[in-house]
């Protein structure tokens, strides 16, 4: 039989799987018996695994670029018309390829762990390597058996099916990468937690070591969620960015528990409390990243992203069960060492603010989990099909998130252990008043929406606490002779961890305002227009100027031309379209929009007359949606600040 790309790719996968298994076994033996030669071998195996997965990716990219349709995955996800850049990103356009991406990123992280910690953490490191290689082995097993990306297709077709048209978008280039960097990123703190348990070193060490890893994983997961929202907003044509779809929930749940973890580790670092809780949270977070993949890839729940795939669900569920069983057994085994050394002194303290933050986040995660699997449970018990929609998730999560916003103002400023009445007054009276005043002013100006008023009041309160804190600190530095600029930058850099967190919080506030504003104020209408006719919405006037048809490299396209004016001022000419892909049963809407800081004009072409005389158009004026994307930018700045090297201690 001929040896082609499919066989080479498959061989690389199998060798990588063997190496990962060997490496894992060698690392665990080295960890238990302390044999340096075995550890060195495990290290070489880890490097080899990463190189081999890189090889797999290169083989697949090459196959995509050269239209090698003898690989089923290539034939299913590209055709001769697919543009060059989408042929590269088609690599993670479907299940099999996204598993390679996951494995490759995990391999990359493993490599970084090897380089960073082999000398620095000689005791924990062999165990960490064991865990990482074991998880890598699982993903390679998935690549080898239930979701083989290199499966041969014969006879070789002349042309491929083509990429899912919805994925031909810039968001699809970055969204999966960011999301998976987040998912795989949580593997590293998880591995350190397991290593700490295995060694019985249940102190703060593993948390301190993985602090930056956690922040970076959290950041990429947040970014992945935001880019996913952006993709949904500008590709799917319904004008929203979040639908409580199972696959969104699947990524949101680890974000919630990861956020809880990010905060609760601070209490352990400071007060040596919550050891058991922190370990449970990281296990839960890592477990949820696997559960999400199981949920969306096993086809048990219908979703816009779900693909029905044979046995992969069983693999993920089994692995998830194994992971949870092992992790919680380790936890139970070390239980006596997990007693906290600190005690909660008062209900009014930073500890309890953080604790409440954790309760809210975990509660949110649980309710999302419950809502997502409720249809499954219900069908199993009552034999009836039901669905739980957006209203369920909104009813529960809106109060929880408003509570979290409030805590965001309280947590960073309230005293550890016990806050005195005097300190509460000093820190919170002004911000609370500012929040109330702003809400009152908005109310007088005619804002009637309760959610917007509450969100605005809370955002002003939180911003107030941060400004107050920063201003006091900067004033103190100024007394030592610095100018304002020097004091500001000096503070940001010297206390980068604290103020990086502040900036991340600001980003979340901006996102929160975007969510509240867009939910409260967005408008939409729909109309069928003859050429020259107009429709009005929110002060905008949209005129239908005509239809055009054209043929693109891999699809046909009907484009409508619409002039948008606001009063007498011309705003833009928008060209929403419908794309006709030969491989799809029906056309795909192509949205056109004009983004603005306060409002976006957003057009979706609906039905049209085949002689071009009429077109049905959906017009939306979406308010404050851009704040979500701006919030992402602020989040990025804050994260960079937070992970800068700590200046307070000598490195």
């Amino acid at each position, binding site marked *: 039989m001929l040896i082609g790309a499919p066989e080479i790719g498959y061989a690389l996968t199998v060798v990588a799987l063997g190496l990962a298994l060997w490496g894992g076994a060698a690392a665990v033996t080295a960890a238990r018996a302390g044999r340096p030669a075995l550890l060195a071998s495990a290290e070489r195996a880890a490097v080899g695994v990463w190189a081999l997965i890189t090889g797999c990716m290169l083989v697949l990219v090459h196959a995509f670029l050269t239209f090698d349709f003898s690989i089923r995955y290539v034939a299913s996800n590209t055709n001769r018309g697919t543009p060059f850049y989408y042929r590269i990103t088609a690599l993670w356009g479907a299940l099999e390829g996204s598993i390679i991406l996951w494995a490759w990123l995990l391999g990359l992280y493993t490599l970084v762990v090897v380089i960073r910690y082999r000398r620095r953490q000689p005791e924990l490191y062999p165990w960490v390597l064991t865990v990482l290689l074991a998880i890598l082995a699982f993903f390679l097993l998935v690549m080898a058996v239930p979701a083989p990306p290199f499966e041969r297709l014969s006879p070789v077709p002349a042309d491929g099916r083509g990429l899912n048209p919805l994925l031909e978008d810039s968001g699809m280039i970055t969204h999966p990468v960011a999301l998976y960097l987040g998912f795989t990123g949580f593997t590293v703190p998880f591995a350190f937690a397991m290593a700490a348990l295995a060694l019985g070193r249940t102190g703060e060490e593993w948390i301190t070591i993985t602090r930056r890893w956690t922040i970076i994983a959290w950041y990429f997961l947040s970014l992945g969620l935001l880019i996913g929202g952006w993709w949904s907003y500008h590709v799917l044509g319904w004008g929203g960015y979040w639908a409580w779809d199972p696959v969104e929930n699947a990524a949101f749940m680890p974000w919630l528990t990861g956020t809880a973890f990010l905060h609760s580790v601070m209490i352990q670092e400071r007060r040596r409390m919550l050891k058991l809780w922190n370990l449970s949270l990281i296990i839960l977070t890592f477990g949820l990243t696997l559960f999400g993949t199981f949920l969306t890839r096993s086809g048990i729940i219908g979703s816009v992203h779900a693909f029905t795939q044979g046995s992969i669900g069983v693999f993920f569920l089994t692995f998830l069960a194994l992971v949870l069983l092992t992790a919680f057994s380790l936890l139970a085994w070390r239980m006596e060492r997990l007693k906290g050394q600190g005690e909660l002194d008062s209900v009014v303290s930073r500890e309890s603010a953080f604790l409440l933050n954790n309760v809210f986040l975990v509660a949110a995660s649980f309710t999302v989990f419950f809502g997502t699997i409720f249809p499954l449970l219900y069908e199993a018990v009552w034999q009836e099909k039901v669905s739980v929609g957006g209203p369920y998730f909104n009813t529960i999560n809106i109060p929880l998130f408003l509570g979290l916003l409030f805590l965001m103002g309280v947590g960073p400023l309230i005293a550890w252990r016990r806050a005195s009445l005097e300190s509460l007054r000093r820190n919170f009276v002004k911000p609370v008043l500012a929040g109330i005043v702003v809400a009152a002013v908005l109310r007088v100006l005619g804002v009637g929406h309760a959610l917007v008023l509450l969100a605005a009041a809370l955002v002003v309160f939180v911003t107030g606490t941060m400004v107050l804190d920063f201003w006091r600190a900067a004033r103190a530095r100024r007394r030592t002779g610095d100018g304002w600029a020097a004091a500001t930058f000096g503070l940001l850099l010297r206390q980068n961890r604290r103020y990086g967190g502040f900036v991340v919080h600001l980003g979340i506030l901006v996102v929160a305002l975007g969510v509240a504003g867009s939910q409260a104020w967005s408008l939409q209408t729909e109309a069928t227009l003859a050429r020259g006719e107009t429709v009005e919405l929110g002060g905008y006037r949209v005129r239908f100027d005509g239809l055009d048809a054209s043929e693109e490299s891999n699809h046909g396209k*009907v484009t409508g031309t619409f002039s948008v004016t606001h009063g007498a001022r011309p705003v833009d000419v928008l060209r929403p379209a419908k794309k006709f892909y030969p491989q799809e049963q029906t056309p795909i809407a192509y949205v056109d929009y004009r983004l603005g800081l306060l409002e976006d004009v957003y057009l979706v072409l609906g039905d049209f007359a085949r002689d*071009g005389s009429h077109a049905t158009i959906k017009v939306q004026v979406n308010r404050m949606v851009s704040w979500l994307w701006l919030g992402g930018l602020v989040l990025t700045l804050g994260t960079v600040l937070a992970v800068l090297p700590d200046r307070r201690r000598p490195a």
Partner: protein
Amino acid sequence: MKRRAKFFAGGAVILAVLAYLVYAGVSQSVVYFVTPAELLAAPSAGKTYRLGGMVQPGTLVWEPRTLDLRFTLSDGKATVPVRHKGTPPDLFGEGRGAVVEGSWSGDGYFKATTILAKHSEEYKAPHGASQAGYKELLKTLRGDSAGAR
């Protein structure tokens, strides 16, 4: 011990509120999937359903001017007339599966607020089947410009 009791009381309150929210949320927003036969067996006006069936060929009426969409959903046993306001989604059509969300009007039809067309990953259309829309437009437009010349 007193402090402990306070924390436990607080925790219990939070749990109770949460349980209530979950209960209220689920009972408010749970939507039942029904087939036309199941719906007609016990139609309850005002309750939200998801009604699934096939769009019966020959029943689809679309008035672009008024945005009125009417069709009949069938499960082979019973048929339910459905009315909707707005453009049908891309995947919607006669002879295809569709799920509509809405409520029974009480006047003999189902009032749909949302149409969720069924998207099957497996289905592969014969080449050109979906192309009618733009091919025809292409032809007309080219014809138009030729005629104008």
